[in-house]
């Protein structure tokens, strides 16, 4: 049995994998104590399948907080290769993996073995990551899940600059005053993030098939917008937020 940990800015994910089967998945809030979050995640993941630490052969860690747990494991896997391994686990046809998390986004072009051919990263700006959608949901006072759903209801092109999440907050307020519906604004928000992510992915190069992973892959409004922005179909697996942790678990 192998265990993979992905310490993200917002959530810490734990995956337990055995002979190509995912046995247990757990996500806990990272908070300010990364070490405590990891311990809690491992405990819960083991409890779920009624196993103990001694059943685990190998522990590997990835994510922004990967250096925070030297007492548990020093076996680090970089985020891009964990994403590549994880994506291929679900879709052997994966050639581009786009990982969109709360505070960063990455795109990697890979071969069938998971070797990285090129990659691009955004960790500097919220407008190209999940935080942007969260900030906008807050400005519109609706939950992210609802915001993502209503985007599909709009057919309109709504004018929005939205190059910065802070400026976009006031833009959203003006759009409401100007009479745009929340659905229209939601579509504009998701188009804005998708355009940024698509631009980043193009820097790494686009090849079929494109797979999107990370927590933001659950956002249907975003996936819909990204399909439009890249003008192609996109693959998303169930539980896309765990792909990094699974990738770390199965890394050699």
């Amino acid at each position, binding site marked *: 049995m192998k265990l993979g940990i992905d310490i993200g*800015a917002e959530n810490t994910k734990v995956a337990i994998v055995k002979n190509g089967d995912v046995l247990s998945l757990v996500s806990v809030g990272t908070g*300010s104590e990364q070490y405590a979050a990891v311990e809690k995640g491992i405990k819960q993941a083991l409890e779920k399948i009624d196993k103990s630490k001694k059943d685990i052969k190998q522990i590997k860690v990835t994510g922004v907080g990967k250096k925070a747990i030297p007492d548990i494991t020093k076996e680090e896997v970089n985020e891009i290769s964990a994403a590549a391994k994880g994506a291929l686990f679900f879709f052997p046809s994966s050639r581009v993996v786009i990982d969109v998390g709360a*505070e960063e986004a990455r795109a990697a072009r890979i071969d069938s073995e998971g070797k990285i051919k090129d990659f691009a990263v955004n960790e*500097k*700006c*919220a407008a190209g990551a999940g*935080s*942007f959608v969260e*900030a906008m949901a807050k400005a519109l006072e609706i939950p992210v899940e609802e915001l993502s759903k209503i985007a599909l209801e709009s057919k309109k092109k709504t004018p929005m600059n939205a*190059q*910065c*999440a*802070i*400026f976009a907050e006031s833009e959203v307020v*003006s759009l409401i*005053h100007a009479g745009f519906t929340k659905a229209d604004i939601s579509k504009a928000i998701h188009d804005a993030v998708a355009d940024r992510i698509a631009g980043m992915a193009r820097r790494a190069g686009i090849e079929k098939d494109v797979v999107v992973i990370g927590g933001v892959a659950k956002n249907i409004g975003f996936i819909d917008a990204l399909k439009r922005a890249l003008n192609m179909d996109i693959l998303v697996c169930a539980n896309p937020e765990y792909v990094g942790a699974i990738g770390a678990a199965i890394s050699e």
Partner: protein
Amino acid sequence: MTTAKTEFRKWLEYRWTSPDIDWRKGNVISGGIDIGSVSSQAVIMVDGKLYAYSSMRTGSNSPDSAERALGWALEDTGLNGKDIRYIVGTGYGRINIPMAKKVITEIACHALGANFIYGSSVRTILDVGGQDVKAIRCDEKGKVINFIMNDKCAAGTGRGMEVIAELLEVPIVEIGERSFKVERNIDPVSSTCVVFAKSEALKLLRGGMAVNEVLAAYNQAMAIRIVEVLERIGLEREFAITGGQAKNIGLVRRLTELLKTTAVDSGELDPQVAGAIGAALFAKAIIEKSRQSSK
């Protein structure tokens, strides 16, 4: 019971009239209105001297903000709007100022306004506005030679500092002083993005860092960000800062330390009014030119 929400991000709104000038004896009365993304100013000049001005928060629409700012600047002066021969509009909302006969970019207005406030030896102006940062190079007449601007990202702008003021619940006027009330060296927050800096600041607070220390961390990060903008255009002395954040000593002192230079002191004048002063000076030049040609 009513509760008022304190708005920590706002600068003081106020008006001012010169006690030394009688506009009735004036020859050229000109006006400048600067409708910024965050604040608006109206300036009235008599023969090129500063006579009256107002500074307030920008409302939800530009014409209304312009009306209110000018009305307030005129208050108790005995002057009427129609006594002002020519008004130039500038700033983010400049295309929507009904009483302005001409619109001039805020770049040109800030350069000319800085020349008035800080003197003709100013060659580099940093304008830290509500939603943008501009670095302007100008000549001894306050004419723009070159400029660069960041208006794509809130990092380094007044808006970024407002977000921190609200988060920490510290009035914007106190931020500078308080950011120096720390007893150890504080590293800047690592993120350029204001959204990320905000979550970093929250983490620091939860980790036990004092509010003043977080202020130091953010001011330092903002100064570093602005230095990057200035380095792209090159700094020639004298150096002057305009805009609301020119009043934040926490930013100004850290910025000039990083740049190993000093910034010219604005004296009694409010550096936030530079754009409207520049606009009023352009208006004065237009009046004089039209009088000359009609002679």
